[in-house]
């Protein structure tokens, strides 16, 4: 396939010293190929890229622009508009504390403060060892078990500041031996 010529009028990036002279990696190309020509697919494409990389790195976004013909301004417009997209790499464990109404009235803010103090990071930051990123989430819909915390895909209900830290410690304990094994 000739990637230099496009039938799409928006796609006209092909300048000297192109930083994207190399073709995209195969797994990214596979995503892009599936949505080629679909004008409404941009959000879905970004969701798939984030599922692949855990965030939206700059280079794949540039490939989206060049391959699918969306202006980078539009891509970044979408990536910064919607809450699910991240432009920086998260830690290995994404710790999300729910701040929905039920969680709020059941004092989820004290849990955020506690985790923040113990981990030594504030909201949206990642610990220096790259293990934990602390975030809040609007609502995960498990309000009857408020306050709620989500670590990667696992949801924990009926939390207290101490219980939530206990879960982090459990995660850390599972991490420890594996790290040593890797060394």
């Amino acid at each position, binding site marked *: 396939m000739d990637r230099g010529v496009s039938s799409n009028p928006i796609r006209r990036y092909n300048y000297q010293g192109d930083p994207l002279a190399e073709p995209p990696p195969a797994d990214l190309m596979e995503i892009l190929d599936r949505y080629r020509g679909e004008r409404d697919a941009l959000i*879905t494409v970004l969701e798939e890229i984030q599922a692949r990389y855990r965030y939206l790195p700059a280079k794949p976004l540039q490939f989206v622009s060049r391959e699918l013909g969306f202006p980078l301004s*539009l891509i970044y417009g979408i990536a910064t508009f*919607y809450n699910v997209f991240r432009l920086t790499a998260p830690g290995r464990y994404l710790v999300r504390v729910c701040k929905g*109404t039920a969680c709020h*009235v059941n004092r989820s803010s004290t849990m955020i403060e506690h985790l923040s103090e113990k981990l030594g990071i504030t909201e949206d930051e990642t610990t220096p060892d790259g293990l934990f990123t602390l975030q809040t989430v609007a609502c995960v*819909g498990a309000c*009857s078990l408020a306050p709620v915390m989500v670590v990667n895909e696992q949801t924990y209900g009926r939390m207290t500041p101490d219980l939530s830290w206990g879960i982090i410690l459990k995660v850390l304990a599972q991490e420890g031996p594996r790290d040593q094994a890797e060394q």
Partner: protein
Amino acid sequence: MSTLIRIGTSTCGLAAGAEGVVSAIRTDLDRRQVEVTVQRTGCLGACHNEPLVEVTDGEKAVLYGPVDPEHVDLILDRHFGGGAAQEQELSLILSRRPDHTDFPFLARQTKVTTRLCGVIDPLSLDEYLANGGYMALREALTMAPERVIAIVKDSRLRGRGGAGFPTGAKWEITRKQAASPKFLICNADEGDPGAFMNRTMIEGDPHRLLEGMLIAAWAIGASKGYLYVRAEYPLAVEALRNAVGQAAEYGVTGKNILGSGMDFEFVIKEGAGAFVCGEETALMHSIEGLRGTPSMRPPYPSVSGLWGFPTNINNVESLASIPSIILQGPSWFASLGTEQSGGTKAFALTGVVRASGLVEVPLGTPLRILVEEIGRGCKNDRPVKAVQLGGPSGGCVPAELLDTRIDYEDLRRTGAIMGSGGMVVVDDTTCMVDFARYFLTFTQDESCGKCVPCRVGTRKMLAVLTKITQGQGTRADLERLKRLCETVRTASLCGLGLTAPNPVLTTLRYFEQEYISHVDAGTCPAGICSMRPSAATPDA
């Protein structure tokens, strides 16, 4: 039917530890070498008692909760080991009847849209079919589309997203448009914090929603249906994907469905976490792959929607009501509700109530029934202070108005709204100024920024509220806050801004004294705000 063990494994059940209970039951059954089907179901609604386990043979049933893995042996011993009932195990029994009429939390409810949630395996089409699934579609397809619309109009079903527009009338407008193709959208972007009605319905009984959409598509003449679901609900997305695949195999999507001549396909679109996308024009832009910002109406989506074509947008609960309306008749549905609106409404009852979860009641039920009888009042025997309805777009109903009927008009008179179903009960340890500020933090954050009144107005309102909660507010600030509320609710472009002042306006209306304490005396009566502690601080 043979003996069955049901376990609720919706998001809420899993958060309470249902996965551990499932494996404990499987291990225990293996050890006993008894052949019993373990069925993973959606949520019965009694989330406060999760994980829920029900042992049933159809005739007899015992519902247990909250079940820990260590209870499993005791429970199975009673049913399969001939062991005597032990005290600890008995204390877990919530109900001994298959219809749960002896369990107050469920007994006071009337389940229509959530009837099969917690009863069937949501991933099994066969179980849906065995419970009358797709019968309503078959019946609707024998009728003229106009007849279906007439039935929905007669049922007095109104939009369950919160605005309450009559569903049948909306369908009729879309039906009458000459342009083609026509689209149908199911709004499952349940963005209100504190709401999980749609999540429970989709995770528990996804085919009901698809059936409702197929009937709607027949009525309006739509050829494609979008399911716009929150990405924050991974299990709901999975349940829908599975159901859409099964529907295709079963032959209720595709070409010439059940010989009716109707062609229809489903498309699942995952939302990307923007509250404003619950607004219909913003939602459509999001489906088109753009930033989810709203547009001026008119034209309304029914006339010019997705890519300029007539588009009908309905909420999950509205669509999930349709199969029952077709099968049981519009007069039955209408008789469940009030003079102006028929049927039932599901609420996510949460906050500080003893029993929380998903509650479905007929329209016209007084709020008090939900708070005091179903929810059993506040934890720690504290008095109920207020009920917040409709999330960031809604308002607070104070305890003295708990006899208000749940109905679009009655609730609007209190300054609150029906909303999509979030119902948060708060007690006297909640500061209403802080509560209003909480919602403003949310709306300010979620304002898309397209129109100035909302973008700047919510920011200014939040600044004033923050100043007050920090003990720096004055009487002049209260006046400024009221003026800002008026401007934002008059001049904003879409529902997000138009309703953003509601949490402030209703708390000002019913709890103005609390605001005055903050600005005059510099005290927070509930002791929540970060100002000097007040003498009236209740003990924690």
